[in-house]
């Protein structure tokens, strides 16, 4: 059952992600991203990462996707945008493909051949407790630094986005 669900979600993610890349209409690309995000959230749930799944839905679907769609709406041409830029020639295409294939092959070899560390695993009821505890103890500094990071992001982004 879980395997079946995994393949379902994986199919949703890969299918919608290909629509994002291949669609000629950026609006369709943006909406297709919705399914990618949902599928990834489903995969997180299958990995027993409930907090990450909820974060995915809240932040990515609730925030970032909205932002992307606003960004699309800000452009002058929405339909029929020519995605291909004029300068992408054969040379770049071939080199990029070769690099991508090499990376893909090495990653596939890595995933199939390596013994990953298996820490003893109990299926948790919820992970939020332990995440909160980790935030307050071991990862206190990254937690506080995340606030500074968000502040910098806020100041920088509004600065760039404002009209003047």
């Amino acid at each position: 059952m879980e395997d079946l669900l995994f393949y379902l979600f994986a199919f949703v993610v890969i299918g919608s992600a290909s629509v994002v890349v291949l669609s000629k209409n950026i609006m369709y690309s943006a909406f297709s991203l919705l399914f990618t995000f949902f599928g990834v959230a489903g995969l997180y749930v299958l990995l027993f990462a409930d907090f990450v799944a909820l974060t995915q839905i809240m932040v990515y679907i609730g925030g970032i996707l909205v932002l992307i769609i606003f960004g699309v709406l800000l452009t002058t041409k929405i339909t029929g945008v020519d995605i291909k830029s004029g300068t992408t020639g054969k040379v770049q295409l071939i080199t990029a493909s070769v690099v991508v294939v090499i990376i893909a092959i090495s990653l596939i070899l890595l995933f199939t051949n390596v013994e990953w560390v298996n820490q003893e695993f109990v299926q948790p009821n919820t992970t939020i407790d332990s995440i909160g505890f980790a935030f307050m103890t071991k990862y206190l500094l990254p937690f506080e630094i995340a606030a500074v990071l968000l502040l910098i992001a806020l100041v920088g982004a509004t600065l760039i986005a404002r009209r003047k």
Partner: protein
Amino acid sequence: MLTNFGIILLFFIIGFIFVGISIAAASLIRPHKPNPIKNATYECGEVALGSPWIRFNTRFYVIALVFLIFDVEIVLLFPWAVVFKGLGWYAFAAMLVFFFILTLGLVYDWGKGYLDWEKPNPIVPVLSDLIDGKK
């Protein structure tokens, strides 16, 4: 955990089935007689002019940005809220620092006026100007 999320998945599936059945049923039952007026965009009786794809105002974008940042803040505060009872004042202080730094972002945006909704400022024609022949 999976059982709880399974219920959510079940809701999804039922939702899809429900919508699918209603659309299928509607397409079986409904009459199909289109004409150009029926196919036109409904604009309260006006004739639709131009493309509906217009550019959005930038201010929506800024508001969405601010929303996104505080969305992330809420997500990060949520685990803290679950455990802070067992951790006491120390955790409370840690959260206050976090919260203070981010609130500063809101203060910054507010103080700089990025949150103000730019209202259109129409120039109302004055009668005397019209009589004098000015614009």
